[in-house]
């Protein structure tokens, strides 16, 4: 006789009460179980033992009192916890999640949660600074330490407590300098001598304010722009013994890399490479991705060790260019774009009546409202054969099929870092669940027996009847829609409560985009390319 109740939140209320949180067995219950089962303790003795186990793990006894041992948990665990809280916030703030979005908007909590995100971001930045410094110290001293769950002491550099780290008045940059004694000493004795000074240009994509926002392009506050920047690599000797010629032949003691800023060099190096204790060559890298003037500049983002070390700065160009590129590859955070609520309209077409084109045409052309969904290789490939009803995901497995013609190849984009090939996870769809559709060049589309991929190199392999195996980057096989670079002939994406296809029918570019036609359809709850990704 109870009233039917469809509200998800009411249902959720029950679940909360019934105790989902009790899924994992807590520590004290485990201790009790062990003491009773293996040591023959009574239940009461085990209860006392479980409490004492907490004391042992998290307290120190001093003058008859029990004091909390804050060193019992390493900073890494604290950051892990904070990152978990960040994921919780991200879950709530994700505009793709209809339920949380509506909940937050109903109660006007979005801004509050974004503020909480900033607090956590600050905490992660501060703790990470100290974690990286501890790592730097260990690498410089060639110490290798790992913290096991039963270890009770995880000291921090200079004995800094959590609160000291979090207190903004603590100048971490000053207290935990990423320097080496031998370099500082050579500087103070004015014995730091330049061995090399190389200028090198590097090309990368940079995020900048979008000048078309919000009037022309209301969705993207920023855009990615191709940039070229100069780097200056300076190699030093830390000894002035010997004449000029002798010094020149020496291997590097210390290397610095500077970024250019508006034609001038930044004051502090973006990369520093030190010699660790007892090492002949610089091996310990300290890298700062944040440019001068930005938050985080002067605080490293990465501390690592180069195997073998560097004889000279030139070796950075020949052996470790990836390290230089890393200066500009800060992961771009996906912006949360709230969907625009489209008023629902009723469209009735009686059978037999003239039907307007399914496409809405635009002289300017239609665009995808998300400009950073494609970050290189963050997609899975799907192949549709003409004699199959639905496309298949391209896997690394070579599986022969009956000879057929490829109708199209689709790229389904996922958020970088969310795909796990070993675990079989396809990855979380990017915002808008963007899928690009490509036509395959006729010489490769026909008589296909198998299409598979090398996950490591991202090379697509096509096996055609009577031909040798073709292996190349996937775009090599695709048709160019505008006669230039390979481009998708169709792109599908969500916007608000609808899903759209934008299509290039005429093969010519429009004023602002290649795609002159747009079709609108219902936004599927779960996007399944085998059902929802069909060509329309």
């Amino acid at each position: 006789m109870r009233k039917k109740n469809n509200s998800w939140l009411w249902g959720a209320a029950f679940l909360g009460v019934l105790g989902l949180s009790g899924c994992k067995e807590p520590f004290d219950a485990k201790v009790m179980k062990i003491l009773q089962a293996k040591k023959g303790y009574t239940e009461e003795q085990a209860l006392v033992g479980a409490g004492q186990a907490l004391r042992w793990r998290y307290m120190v006894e001093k003058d008859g009192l029990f004091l909390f041992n804050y060193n019992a948990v390493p900073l890494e665990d604290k950051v892990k916890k904070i990152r978990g809280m960040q994921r919780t916030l991200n879950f709530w703030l994700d505009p793709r999640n209809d339920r949380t979005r509506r909940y937050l908007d109903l109660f006007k909590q979005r801004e509050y949660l974004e503020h909480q995100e900033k607090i956590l971001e600050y905490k992660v930045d501060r703790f990470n600074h100290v974690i990286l410094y501890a790592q730097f110290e260990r690498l410089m001293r060639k110490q290798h330490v790992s913290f096991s769950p039963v270890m009770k002491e995880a000291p921090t550099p200079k004995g800094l407590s959590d609160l000291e780290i979090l207190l903004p008045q603590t100048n971490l940059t000053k207290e935990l300098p990423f320097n080496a004694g031998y370099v500082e000493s050579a500087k103070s004795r004015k014995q730091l001598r330049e061995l090399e000074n190389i200028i090198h240009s590097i090309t990368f994509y940079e995020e900048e304010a979008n000048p078309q926002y919000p009037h022309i392009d209301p969705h993207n506050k920023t855009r990615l722009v191709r940039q070229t920047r100069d780097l200056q690599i300076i190699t030093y000797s830390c000894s002035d013994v010997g004449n000029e010629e002798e010094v020149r032949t020496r291997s590097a003691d210390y290397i610095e890399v500077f970024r250019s800023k508006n034609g001038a060099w930044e004051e502090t190096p973006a990369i520093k490479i030190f010699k660790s204790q007892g090492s002949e060559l610089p091996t310990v890298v300290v890298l700062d991705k944040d440019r001068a003037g930005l938050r985080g500049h002067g605080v490293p983002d990465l501390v690592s060790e180069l195997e073998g070390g560097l004889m000279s700065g030139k070796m950075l160009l020949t052996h470790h260019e990836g390290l230089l590129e890393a200066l500009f590859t800060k992961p771009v955070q996906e912006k949360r774009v709230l969907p625009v609520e489209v008023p629902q309209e009723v469209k009735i077409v009686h059978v037999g009546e003239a039907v307007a084109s399914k496409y809405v045409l635009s002289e300017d052309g239609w665009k995808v409202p998300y400009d950073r969904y494609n970050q290189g290789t963050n997609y899975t490939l799907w192949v549709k054969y003409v004699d199959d009803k639905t496309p298949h995901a391209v896997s690394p497995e070579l599986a022969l099929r009956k000879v057929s013609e490829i109708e199209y190849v689709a790229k389904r984009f996922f958020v970088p870092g969310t795909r796990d090939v070993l675990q079989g996870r396809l990855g979380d769809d990017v915002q808008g669940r963007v899928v690009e559709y490509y036509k395959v060049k006729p010489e490769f589309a026909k008589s296909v027996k198998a299409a598979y991929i090398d996950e490591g190199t991202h090379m697509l392999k096509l096996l055609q009847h009577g031909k040798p195996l073709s292996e190349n980057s996937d775009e090599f096989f695709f048709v160019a829609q505008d006669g230039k670079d390979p481009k998708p002939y169709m792109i599908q994406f969500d916007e608000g409560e609808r899903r759209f296809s934008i299509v290039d029918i005429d093969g010519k570019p429009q004023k602002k985009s290649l795609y002159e036609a747009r079709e609108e359809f219902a936004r599927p709850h779960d996007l399944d390319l085998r059902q929802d990704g069909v060509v329309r």
Partner: protein
Amino acid sequence: MKKRLAIAALVALPFFGAPYIFRQSPAQVVYADSSQPHYLKHLKQPKDEVQQILEVARVVNTFDGAFGASEFIAGNIEEKVKVYGKDVTIVFHNYVQDGEDVRYFRTGGIDVLKKGAFEAVKQDIVATLHEAAEDAYKEHEHLSKRIIAIQEKAVGKRLENSQKLEDLLDQKVKGYENLIVADVLGVPRLSRVDFVPSQLHVGPLLDALGITFINSEFVGYDWLARQIDFVQGRPNILKHELVHNCRKLQGIPTIYEYDAEFHASMVMDHNALWFMRHSYLNDARSLAKVLFGFDAVKAFNDSRKFSLLPGSPLDENKMADYAKKINLVEKEIHDTYFEKFLPEYIANLSFWTAVNDDLNDKNAAFKICAWAYYQPTLLDGKGRESTVQWLRKNQKVIEEAAKEALEEIQKERENPQPIMVPDVHHFSPQEKELVKSFLKVMGVSDDEDLAPVLKVVQQMSKDGVFDRLRFYR
């Protein structure tokens, strides 16, 4: 992530279980002008604790429980009031204005409240909300000062001469837009208004005494809860909900990191029976047993010799005796929670949330805190060594067990076990229908991920919850 949604709402459950059967209701009643709201008429407020427990039990027994929870709020009477200066909309569910009168839609019928009778309802709720907000605030009045004292002790050497940490709290954090020092140190700086909801929904709401949707300032308060609060002479249940309502204490995301129900229960001035039985107080009972030697389960069984479906005989003398002891225990736990634990937990939040996580226990931090301030007495007894002496002898064995438990947790994390969900394809049609109707009753729609729900059901079945529900009906 379903888990996150699952605790989007926090409810206070009547521990007597969920009534289920629709009962015939009496004919329409007309309430004339009155100084007392219709739902409190003829209720007593006994000062004696045992008599109070019995009056509450009778109130629960009269509760129909066939809920008329309206899916839509619109159409009910809404009153806008100010509570400690904050605008609050009170929504009286199932009350509809009808000229001068108010019609009240209760289970199985409609009553009519004359103007004065409904005025009494309004006044009662507004006064109760004031009282509950004041009480909830009072419990936390000194929290910020205590947090600051702990933090100042830890960072004092970094402050300039005669500088106080409190004076720095409003300073901006360089490089982080809109952040101030109080934000990054987590000092909540509470006021009464933080506990006051924007919307208070009263009336027959759902199978719970109260409900709060986190970060929403939306609180529900059932008539049964109001009746229990009235009998007890203090708005315990509403106070509990208002702690959930305070987002500075229990907002997203920190609410997920500790036992928020235990915290909200600590502000309640429970009677002995609540302490003995409410599920939110499991850890309080366990600590009372190990630290103070008080076994609440035994106390309950002593006071109620046998459980009988139509009603269990209560030994009033024993209950009265245990009530005194429980008051002592509760005071210790309550004071430790607010004076020691909560300030310490918030002051060193990064540490304690990691501890809770490491130990798979949302209330681990409080347990540790209690063990820091009390010596266990559970094994004390005539002719026996004290518990502390026993501990000294057994220290090594306990350490080994602790290490083994920690390693076990670590291993479980490295190799998480998949959630065991019954394969519904192998169910018989009857079984499928049964599961479907159960989920429907629970408000779970067809398109939801059922795995978490089924896991809870499995756990309930394993724990014998269904069997107990039968008794409590």
